[in-house]
Every structure is written in structure tokens, then in C-alpha cells.
């Protein structure tokens, strides 16, 4: 199931709802993505360098394509693993540090499938789902740049990335 919404979600409530439609599963994996208070990465080893304090993050998305891409990714996970039930919730709009951004739940008879399918969904939605983060802090606003490490994480699942540069 896919939900794209501005409203917050309650992990406990969502878990209970999913369990009601996935009776008899042996394991459920839940991933929650949260807005960090600090963004950016330290490359010099000094934890303070290159990092920006975040006041808020605004997530923009492409209505229609977002739902379609998330549904495709979920269908691919179901093809690859024996998943009894799954849920992806992704929020958009203005979010402050500590706020929930994304929830991915996968339920299966055994833990391995639930863990792997969950990681697959998170890796793939980061590189396929049309969302863009605009960070705002004391230094002003900036669009978050895509990370090569996210592409590498998606690549390890052995699926040809469908996102391609327009320069090819």
C-alpha cells in the first residue's frame, strides 16, 4: 500500500493496521526516516566542518508520478520476496527536525525476506521516487544534492537504474 501525504503518521497505528491484514506472518520490519537536525557530511574528520544546522526541510514532489513510482517499486519487492503485506508512507511539505519523513513496513513469514525487502524499498525509493528536499537554516536555503552513495546502494540490488541523465 502506498500513501503520499502531508500529515504525520503514527508508526504504532500503521503497524497494527498492517498486522490486521497480514495474519500469520512471522516477522515485520519497520523503517522510519526522520528529519535530521544537522545536514551534510564531514569530510575532514572534524564533525563540525561542512555541516549545516537545519531549521526546516521542505519536500517537493511530482503528484501522480510519485505514486506510480512507489507502486512500481513495491510491486518489484513483492516479485522478489515472499512479502505478505507492505506499506510505504512518504510525507511532503514543510518538516522540522525530528519529524517523520518516510515509513516502510514489510511483513513476511520469515525475517530475512522482511529485512531484505525493506532495505530494497528504502534504497530504491531514494533514487526513483520524485521527491526533492529544500533545506532551510541560518545560512539560507539550499536544494539537497543527490548522493553517489545512494545510487551505489540501489545498484547493489542488481536492477538497472531507470533514472538516466539527459546528457547520455
Amino acid at each position, binding site marked *: 500500500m502506498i500513501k503520499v501525504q502531508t500529515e504525520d503518521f503514527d508508526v504504532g497505528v500503521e503497524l497494527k493496521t498492517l498486522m490486521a491484514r497480514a495474519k500469520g506472518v512471522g516477522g515485520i520490519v519497520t523503517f522510519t*526516516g526522520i528529519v535530521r537536525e544537522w545536514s551534510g557530511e564531514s569530510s575532514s574528520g572534524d564533525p563540525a566542518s561542512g555541516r549545516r544546522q537545519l531549521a526546516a526541510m521542505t*519536500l*517537493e*514532489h*511530482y503528484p*501522480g*508520478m510519485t505514486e*506510480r513510482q512507489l507502486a512500481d517499486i513495491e510491486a518489484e519487492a513483492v516479485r522478489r520476496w515472499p512479502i505478505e503485506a507492505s506499506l510505504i508512507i*512518504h510525507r511532503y511539505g514543510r518538516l522540522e527536525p525530528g519529524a517523520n*519523513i*518516510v515509513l516502510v513496513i514489510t511483513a513476511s513469514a520469515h525475517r530475512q525476506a522482511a529485512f531484505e525487502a525493506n532495505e530494497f524499498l*528504502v534504497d530504491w*525509493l*531514494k*533514487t*526513483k*521516487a*520524485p*521527491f*526533492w*528536499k*529544500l533545506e532551510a537554516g541560518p545560512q539560507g536555503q539550499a*536544494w*539537497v*544534492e*543527490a548522493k553517489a552513495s*545512494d545510487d551505489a546502494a540501489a545498484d547493489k540490488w542488481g536492477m538497472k537504474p*531507470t*533514472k*538516466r*541523465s*539527459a*546528457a*547520455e
Partner: protein
Amino acid sequence: MLRAMKLVYFAWLRERVGKAGETLNPPANVTTVGALLEWLKGQGGGYAEALKDLSAVRVAVNQEYAGPEATVGANDEVALFPPVTGG
């Protein structure tokens, strides 16, 4: 002959172009994503600025990712945006 296409822009591409979307009628020789981007770039102003570095531009035709060789035509919805950063 009118070949109206719906263009939509997101994130910094939207900011540089200066609008969220529009309907355009490119010339008849514009039949691929690559040709459309070159034509748009040639319109100058915000388009030239937004499309300066095509390696930072992703394209979707009718809400599916598309490469430069993908065909575009009348009534297509073509979206231009930077690499995605959700999750």
C-alpha cells in the same frame, strides 16, 4: 500543425525556468527528449540557465523516466527535474 506538449518543472529547475509548468508547441523536428531539451535551451533566459548542465537534468515522459532518445509528441506530459533526493 500544433504539437502542444505539457511541460512541468520541479525543484531548482522550476526556480530557474521561473514557472511550474506550461504548454509549448515545439517545431516539427523536435521528436525526441534530447531534441526537446536542445530546443528549450535555445529559447535562452531561464531555460538556458536551467539546462546549462544536462548531466544534472532528469526527464520523465508521461510520468515514466525517459532517456534522450525517447520520443515525444503531441499531448505528452514532459517533466524536467534534478536527481531525486527523497527518502
